[in-house]
């Protein structure tokens, strides 16, 4: 794969290798790759459980390159983005990052992502899915230049309690002063790196943005620097565990982009997804504002909430009921797992009003295979606070040396 993947035509090999593919390929023990935004990426290197503990116990490296990146520049770039997303970006300073969502006119989410302010009139938008079409249409009336730069930037997520220490060892001087949602450029071991204190794990961590030509050099340097700090390459399975604990949403798992839905009533608003804190009605107009205000006024019909479920079997895709007999259906689980760190059976779920209120109890219909003998269990579940796991270290500056 490593030799032909880069040059083979798209009709024989539709997925592209990332700049880190050669290194990842070499470390992959179980040959488990999955497609992500047109690239082939590692799902599991060796064992998802052990990879997960690298995130929570030491330091993990995750190839983030397929994250779709857009460069947005021009005199109206700030105004453009502020009208696009629901959050107030006027306050976003240079060298800061903001987590945002954006909606269609009906107030339903198209995607979430991060906005990096690179300069006075230059931004970078990172998203999980491609949306050049939407972004260009949104540029009508604004003096902005928009281009996709995904292939020009190699990216790695370095996450876990020892991540700061590893970067220090790599020679990134001053990294300990970087605050959450801040980024800066550094020179280390002959490379120019942009590093942001961001991530998808809810833990202490950083994201490294580099020239793809230096991908191998960066990977090797990190692995060497982190050897004594338990550094480990992880796949998306382990990352997914961490993000559920952190209460982060995954497109196409916890919601479907309103641009992609074909059925009526399957799109979700940020309010319904529990992201009301990202919606700022005071900042002026933005796409979807009127619909969201109307939704605020009428009250929510459903909301995404966190659940704590009895037993230890993950309630993946379980239907939820108000009663134990399972006669009144009130929603369904979107993401579920046994949390190894919290020692709780947790889930994210979309639940109808009024059952999404904190503390409400309900019943999850869980199917269990006992050596292929299937059993149906009604498991008691309770609406609880998210995130399920939020260690202090994610915020502390300078981070301690764990």
């Amino acid at each position, binding site marked *: 794969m490593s030799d032909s993947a880069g040059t083979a035509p798209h009709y024989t090999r539709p997925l592209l290798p990332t700049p880190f593919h050669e290194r990842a390929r070499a470390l992959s023990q179980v040959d488990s790759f999955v497609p992500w935004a047109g690239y082939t990426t590692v799902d599991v290197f060796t064992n998802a459980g052990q990879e997960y503990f690298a995130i929570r116990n030491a330091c993990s490296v995750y190839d983030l390159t397929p994250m779709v990146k857009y460069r947005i520049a021009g005199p109206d770039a700030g105004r453009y983005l502020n009208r696009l997303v629901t959050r107030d970006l006027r306050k976003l300073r240079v060298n800061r990052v903001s987590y945002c969502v954006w909606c269609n006119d009906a107030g339903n989410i198209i995607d979430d992502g991060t906005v990096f302010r690179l300069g006075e009139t230059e931004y970078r938008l990172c998203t999980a899915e491609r949306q*050049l*079409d939407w972004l260009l249409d949104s540029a009508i009336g604004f003096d902005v230049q928009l281009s996709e730069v995904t292939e020009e930037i190699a990216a790695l997520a370095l996450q876990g309690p020892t991540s700061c220490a590893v970067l220090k060892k790599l020679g990134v001087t001053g990294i300990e002063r970087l605050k959450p949602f801040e980024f800066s450029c550094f020179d280390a071991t002959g490379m120019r790196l942009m590093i942001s204190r961001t991530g998808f794990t809810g833990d202490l961590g950083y994201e490294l943005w580099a020239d793809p030509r230096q991908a191998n050099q960066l990977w090797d340097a990190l692995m060497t620097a982190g050897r004594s700090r338990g550094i480990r390459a992880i796949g998306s399975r382990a990352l997914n565990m961490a993000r559920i604990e952190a209460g982060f949403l995954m497109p196409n798992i916890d919601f479907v982009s309103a641009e992609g839905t074909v059925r009526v009533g399957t799109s979700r608003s940020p309010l319904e997804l529990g992201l009301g804190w990202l919606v700022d009605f005071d900042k002026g107009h933005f796409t979807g504002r009127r619909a969201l205000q109307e939704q605020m006024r009428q009250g929510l019909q459903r909301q995404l909430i966190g659940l704590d479920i009895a037993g230890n079997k993950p309630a993946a895709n379980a239907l939820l009921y108000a009663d134990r007999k399972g006669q009144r259906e009130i929603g369904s689980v979107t993401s579920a797992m046994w949390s190894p760190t919290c020692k709780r059976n947790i889930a994210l779920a979309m639940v109808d009003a009024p059952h999404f209120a904190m503390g409400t109890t309900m019943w999850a219909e869980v199917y269990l295979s006992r050596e292929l003998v299937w059993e149906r269990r009604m498991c008691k579940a309770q609406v609880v606070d998210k995130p399920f796991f939020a260690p202090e270290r994610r915020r502390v500056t300078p981070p301690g040396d764990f």
Partner: protein
Amino acid sequence: MTRESEQYDAIVIGAGHNGLVAACYLARAGLSVQVLERNPHIGGAAVSRQLYQNFTYSNCSYVCSLLRPEIMRTLELPRFGLQIIPYDGGCTMMQGGGHLALYDNHDALRREIARHSKRDAEAYDRFARDMIRQCKFIKPLLMREPPDPTSFKPRDIRELLYLGGHFNRLGEERMYDTLRFWTMSIADFLDEYFESEIVKAHMAGSAIIGTALGPRSPGTAYVLLHHYMGDIDDTVGAWGFARGGMGAVTKALAASLQASGGTIRASAPVERILVRNGRSVGVALADGEEIKARLVLSNMDVKRTFLETVEASELSGDFLRRVRNFKIRGSSGKLNIALDGLPTFPAIPAGSPSTRGDMHVTDTIEMMERAYDDWKDGAWSRAPYIDMLIPSQIDPTMAPDGKHYMSVFVQYCPYQLASGPWDAAKRQAFGDTVIDTIARHSPDFKSLILHAEVRTPFDLENEVGLTEGNIFQGELTFDQLLFNRPIPGCAQYRTPLRGLYLCGSTTHPGGGVMGAPGANAARAVLRDLRLAAT
């Protein structure tokens, strides 16, 4: 149930796929059914014939998608040998030598379109989404009898409420989209999604197939949808081959019909539908034989049925005027070609599967519109739009090993030439135009040709019985759809003559090898007889 003087409960005129579908449903409900077919072979426009050695041609229709799965299932067509195999791929070869291919794999497709426009590569998802949204709306309407909006019969009101409720569930915004979709030109419609000429040209093809309209004519966007609303095994918009050619569809239907007691007579052209006291009582064949039946279903189009097969004195003048005004202009030709080997297409890179699907050579909307201009002038297009497939790459039964069968659908070709009547020389010249068009993209193509069947709209009328050669038994324009198909007041398969029903593509929901008109007609008959459909 048959009265003494009646030999059958029902006669079906025409063994096209819709006639056979209707016959199957009636026979399954316990009626004695006789199908009468003019030609020595059955199938109408869904037929497979061997005209040259061991090559099998899908002489008319050539790809399958629209055939309703509920019909295949109820009539047990797979048990009677029907198999539909999806194909992937498809491409448009450009005049300058480039190409655009379509691939099943989403990432391959995105990268392919991105070679022409990065933006279009992503706009394609929005396009596909909107097509699926509209298909979801239209699909439930296919297997229903369209309501008469002026009637106060409970069933009509119920159906109108269904239609209304259906619209309602769409949500306000999508309702606007639906109306735009049903009335726009494909060129305007595609401009709302794509910037690249080649992408637009490729997508526009299905919107002009079989129409007497150009890509800039309002109403063509709907025709695209008409070609999208089928599915294969739940993949919306997917097209495939019937194993053994499109005749496999009618062959399986015939077997299913015979298994439930129905009979088919070929070489039995109906000359007259017999009418007594405003009621059809049977038919008379060309040789004078009369066959009596309580019910008559006509698989012929509405014009052929009422202008040629029923005594005018039995119908009102107003009705006949509407029948005469029904638009059924033919615009398509067809070539079926036996090839000594697989032709090469230098524009397509080696290893690309895109030649296994539908191939085209029209790379701009402008070129398509110019092809239409020729038709308006009463000539076949000098640079025609072609929909070209080589089914033998996928279906091994179509040609001897190592040889290939190519199906070429041609748009536009007139029914009446400005230069005078069609004759053998003109047909030959039309065929040569198409062959030269293909040869421009395939240097070895001509040398591989063993045999070619060339069919003009004039031939389609004479050989298949499609008036003016219109492939859909009537144009698919909004004025002739739903409760206006074929004509207002005659849209529920029933006719002004009691006991006479229409069951062909001339009725809702229209043309294509879909089976829905036949199934809906049978349901209308059974409802009138107060029998339940199975």
